[in-house]
């Protein structure tokens, strides 16, 4: 008698064999075409390696001192920008998010608000910043406007989703007392979305600070301009210092905001 072994094999991820092979073929053709159409200048990369080394060595030790005034000024400017932009953005997003909630707004206002949200979400902050810097001149004001506008898209979208999920009976109870529309929103809707509202604001504060570092590169003020200047002067030690400062502040902000969000929950 033959010794027959029973072997168990794991089920394949995609059951249809044709589909499996097709996908693999598709992916490999894609990779091949990417490889063929992308020009990579190996000569330049070889040249760049010593430069990369210089940059990495700039971190040991980074130079906080030479440009400490500029670094400090940049950080504080970023902070002011972040705070003002978050507050302005949230204040504008409140009516927008009410308008973008299906259960509250009439059709016309709903589509209008959704349009505002989509518009603000479709462009990256950096692209918006380029235009606002062009329109309003260099400096933190343009950065602030950019951050406020991009806050609207993020904040109003998420808040309106939360408004759509509220408990209807609570809101109706307020309505049945004969409240006006504002009273209804204030007592029936607002308390239900408040935890999410605070959580989102803290989260957005965190994001805005990170973005403020990038906006400076295109002229929107803040720590990004300091970084860009350091790069333009080939002061890699200062650039390393700025990067370390950005990382540590982001870590602090992120840690506090996630901690606060847990507290609120």
């Amino acid at each position, binding site marked *: 008698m033959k010794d027959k072994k029973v072997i168990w094999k*794991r089920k394949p991820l995609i059951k249809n064999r044709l589909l499996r092979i097709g996908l693999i073929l598709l992916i490999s053709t*894609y990779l091949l075409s*990417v490889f063929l*159409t*992308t*020009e*990579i*200048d190996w000569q*330049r*990369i070889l*040249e*760049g*390696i010593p*430069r*990369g080394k210089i*940059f990495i060595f700039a971190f040991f030790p980074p130079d906080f001192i030479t440009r400490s005034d500029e670094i400090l000024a940049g950080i*504080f*400017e970023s*902070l*002011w*920008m972040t*705070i*003002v932009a978050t*507050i302005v953005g949230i204040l504008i997003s409140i009516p927008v998010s009410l308008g973008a909630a299906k259960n509250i707004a009439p059709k016309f206002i709903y589509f209008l608000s959704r349009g505002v949200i989509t518009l603000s979400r*479709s*462009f*990256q902050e*950096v*692209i918006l910043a*380029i*235009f606002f810097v*062009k*329109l*309003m*001149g260099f*400096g*933190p*004001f343009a950065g*602030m406007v950019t951050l406020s506008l991009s806050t609207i898209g993020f904040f109003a979208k998420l808040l309106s989703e939360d408004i759509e999920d509220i408990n209807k009976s609570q809101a109706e109870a307020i309505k049945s007392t004969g409240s006006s529309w504002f009273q209804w929103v204030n*007592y029936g809707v607002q308390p239900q979305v408040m935890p999410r509202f605070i959580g989102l604001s803290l989260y957005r504060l965190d994001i805005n600070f*990170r*973005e403020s*570092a*990038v906006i400076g*590169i*295109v002229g929107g*003020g803040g720590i990004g301009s300091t*970084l*860009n200047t350091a*790069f333009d002067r080939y002061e890699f030690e200062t650039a390393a210092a700025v*990067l370390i400062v*950005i*990382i540590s502040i*982001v*870590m602090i902000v*992120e840690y506090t905001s996630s901690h606060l969000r847990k507290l609120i929950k």
Partner: protein
Amino acid sequence: MPIIKQKDYKTWKKFDRKRDLQNWLCWFLGTLIFSFCFGLISSKTIWFYVFDSHNEALDLLGRMFPPETNYFFTLIKPIWDTLNIATIGTSIGTLIAIPLAFLSANNTTPSKKFLRPLALFCIVSSRSINSVIWALLLVAVVGPGVLAGIIAIGLRSIGFCGKLLYEAIEEIDENQIEAIEATGANKAQIMTFGIVPQILPAFTSISIYRWDINIREATVVGLVGAGGIGIELDAQIGDLAWAKVSVILFAIVVAVVFSEWITAKIRKAII
């Protein structure tokens, strides 16, 4: 919720006196901070330009329209590059994120004292630096071009995917692992048969989500020279060719909408 007695009727207020005072104090402090910060910003602003900005905007719009539609065909290659930066960058980022996530998850890390903080540090620093800044660094090192963009997007994705993935790993069902262990499986087998199937859904949805974000980010890494449609945008803004800029902006919107549509489709197909 106190009820206040007036002479001939009772009214209801939401908060009592103490809470009211607290709320007012918070509002007061908030307003104070806001005005202080705004004052600092406004001291660095040339208000003449700001008040003149609507004229500037109208002027700009006038220059942007009508867009140069023919220019769209020269954009096909940059759009293709953008797509590649996002896709390849996401793949590289997720591939590196997998081991990092296993190292930093509480229940799978081999050493809690040494490797876990190191992996967490990698994840956090990758997350706190925006892809444009990564691109700025990499353009200095590997030179302008698509490669810098791919690496920048990849490096930025590591942190994002790593964080979400290690949170997913920490939430897996321990019973299933115990069941696999009970069959006498070794460590690698526990990994492939116990852990991987549990986090695979999270992994796919994280990568798709990141791909969607990366399409957006790949459109801007070019602004600092790292390939894709951003290079075109930077060049045309530099040339003040606004009729071409509007075409590029349109192309970016199309790419973003397309990526959102595709991710929604894939998500529906998988879940």
